[in-house]
């Protein structure tokens, strides 16, 4: 069959016309009640420097990147004086823009191993072992659940992959996200069945500091709630003791803290602090709000993080370990 220029033009025009009509028509199709339809556009945002996208269609990539040492993250964790451990509430509630400059002012490097999807202490501890990390201080930030001895689903998945599979999955997810951002900035995705492209948060992760960096976040305000403590926190002790022993072997101090959320529990701090003989930091929850019922909103987080840092850096164990008083004698500007 011959294929002349006219025929090619006719096919191209038909394709374009059909595409244009369909892209305008599809969002208007009454497939179900209007309330069930979502037109998802990805808003414009600035991609943070040295950061990678971490969450796509329900899949968190942080655990995969950290577990397989992809990119520069683990190299930066190796250089850190203080490692922060916890779930997604930690980096949102103690944001990078407060903690990292405050630490840098004292000549300290910090790195966050905290991951979303309710990651627990076990994952961070195994990372410390796997990559033989030697921080001076490890701060575990979270409710009692972070001491439950389980792996999150993304961490389990990451462990099952080979390094090559993890690398290709990461590249795949990253490229797909870049394409989706471009595509859905002009052509919305239509969702009738509740499989959302993004949640209310769009998160990146800094390879330099390990912090989760929200580029899009919800704007709601929910008050903080303090829930009644469990009758006993003894079940948390085995993992907590294992972590303490591991850090003792490495000459690191353990500090415990919490970031408030919808039904915060704090009793485990006092219990574990006493049982393990470690310091705890519990800033005031007054005037705090969450953006989604679980993570602090930005202004609360800034206030809370500043309060946290002030209390943290005043702890005698911390000052001794980081030799802050020695330094402050040499240079008054670095005094906490």
């Amino acid at each position, binding site marked *: 069959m011959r294929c002349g220029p006219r025929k*090619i033009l006719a*096919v191209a025009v*038909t*394709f374009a016309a059909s595409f244009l*009509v*369909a892209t305008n028509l599809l969002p208007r199709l009454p497939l*179900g009640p209007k309330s069930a339809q979502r037109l998802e556009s990805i808003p414009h945002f600035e991609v943070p420097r040295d950061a990678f996208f971490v969450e796509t269609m329900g899949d968190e990539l942080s655990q995969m990147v950290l577990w397989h040492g992809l990119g520069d993250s683990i190299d930066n964790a190796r250089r850190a004086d203080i490692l922060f451990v916890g779930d997604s509430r930690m980096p949102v509630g103690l944001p990078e823009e407060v903690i990292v400059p405050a630490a840098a002012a004292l000549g300290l490097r910090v790195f966050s191993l905290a991951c979303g999807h309710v990651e627990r202490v076990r994952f961070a501890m195994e990372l410390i072992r796997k990559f033989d990390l030697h921080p001076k201080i490890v701060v575990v930030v979270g409710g009692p659940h972070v001491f439950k001895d389980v792996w999150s689903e993304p961490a389990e998945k990451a462990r099952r992959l080979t390094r090559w599979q993890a690398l290709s999955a990461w590249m*795949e997810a990253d490229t797909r996200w870049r394409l989706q951002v471009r595509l859905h900035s002009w052509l919305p995705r239509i969702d009738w069945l509740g499989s959302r492209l993004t949640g209310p948060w769009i998160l990146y992760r800094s390879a330099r500091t390990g912090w989760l960096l929200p580029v899009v976040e919800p704007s709601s305000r929910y008050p903080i709630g303090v829930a009644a403590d469990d009758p006993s926190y003894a079940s948390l002790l085995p993992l907590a003791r294992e972590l303490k022993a591991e850090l003792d072997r490495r000459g690191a101090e353990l500090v415990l803290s919490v970031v408030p959320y919808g039904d915060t529990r704090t009793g485990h701090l006092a219990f574990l602090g006493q049982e393990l003989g470690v310091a705890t930091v519990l800033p005031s929850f007054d005037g705090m709000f969450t953006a989604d019922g679980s993570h602090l909103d930005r202004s609360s987080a800034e206030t809370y993080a500043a309060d946290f840092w002030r209390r943290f850096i005043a702890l005698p164990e911390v000052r001794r370990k980081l030799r802050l008083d020695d330094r402050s004698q040499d240079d008054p500007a670095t005094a906490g």
Partner: protein
Amino acid sequence: VSFVSLSFVVVQLAALLLRAVSGRSRVAFVVGLVALSWLSYAWSAPQYLFLILLTTTIDYGVARLLAATPPAAGGARRGLLLVSLTLNLGILGYFKYATFLARSWTALAGGLGLWTPGVTTADIVLPIGISFYTFESISYTIDVYRGRIEAEKSFLKLACFIAFFPHLVAGPIVRAGDFLYQLERPRRIRLTVFAEGTYLVTRGLFLKLVVADNLGQLVDLHWKTAAGAPPGTLAASLLVFFACQLFCDFAGYTDIARGLAYQLGLRLPINFDAPHLAVTFSEFWRRWHITLSSWMRDYVYIPLGGNRRGSVRVAVNLLLVMLVAGLWHGAKWTFVVWGAIHGVAIVLERTLGIARGPRRGWTRAAWYVAVQATWIASLGMFRAEDVQQGYRVIRNAIAGLTTLTGTSSSSATAIAIGWWFVLPVVALHLRSLSIERRWLGAVTPLEKAAYAGLMWAAILTLYATGREFIYFQF
């Protein structure tokens, strides 16, 4: 590498570049294709690449030996064939059925105090695509043994036939006689052929990403409810959705595979021919997964005696073939039951003398409904985690239809939306019917351009979360 991954786009672009720069040089094209095919397989499962190499080497060697053995030496030739079959089926059996057999034996013998294997839950990871390339390799050796084709002299060409990346992982199950000759002299790339390939890829992506994945999302979400809830239309809806999901997933894969091969100037056989137009069970299997059905016919059914040994033996042969076809899909009792349902249905049809279709209009219509309803219901077993769950879904679906009990769950809206995704399947079949009955002519290039525009709009806006192709697990 999955077709719906960006890594695969790189592989296909590399193949197209290879096609363009190799010109009509057969050697460069074949070497490049083999390298890309192995690379794309090793991309996700490097540890199993050796199995493809092993299978290729075994069948290359056996076929060459068969070619060198005179036809008079029947025993030696049968021995060689036996070596190939034993090794190929041994590898397939170990990876696909060892765990199943161990578990089944443990369940059966454990209670009787008989010996059971120490490792009862040993999960041997199934190498992706093994069922497909093993069958292709076996068919090559049998065809050489039967004298239908000559033994291939070039190891690379045979390797290309077995590992050619578009069909490696989930078919279609290609015959050597249909493929190897195409490698002799690569054809020029023609715009119309390339455009046809691109259209097939577009249709495949649409069927997979828009129809199959959206329906799959619904089916996954509500399947357990359909099995556990009281009878209602939910179970029946889900079975229809799953039937459409399975069709679009597998036919979509085949479309993409055939389209990619077209773009490279190679032809792969069709695998689906509007199966939901089939009026009889026999016809259904001539329209559904055609390359597997014809493989079963040529390499299992006919060697068992085919139609030649009396009605009882024919019935037994048909049942056996369908049980093997069921087991081919996976080492689970649900697939055995699924195969048995279709075996019994085909035997019943032959017994009633309507294998070629009832003649009268109303009996024809009634039998059509029976055939399609049986297929859809049987997929309850195909999709189920175990036989009990499959039975419950089928029972709930039938009870729901007969009593017309509404879906009481809050998922009613989602289910109602799901029916819209069935429409493309209906449209596809109606267009095929219009061609078969000559109501309309074949799809013209302009019509294809219009469909392609519509499908790309849907792919870019209505795609669901990327699920793996269902047939990857087989």
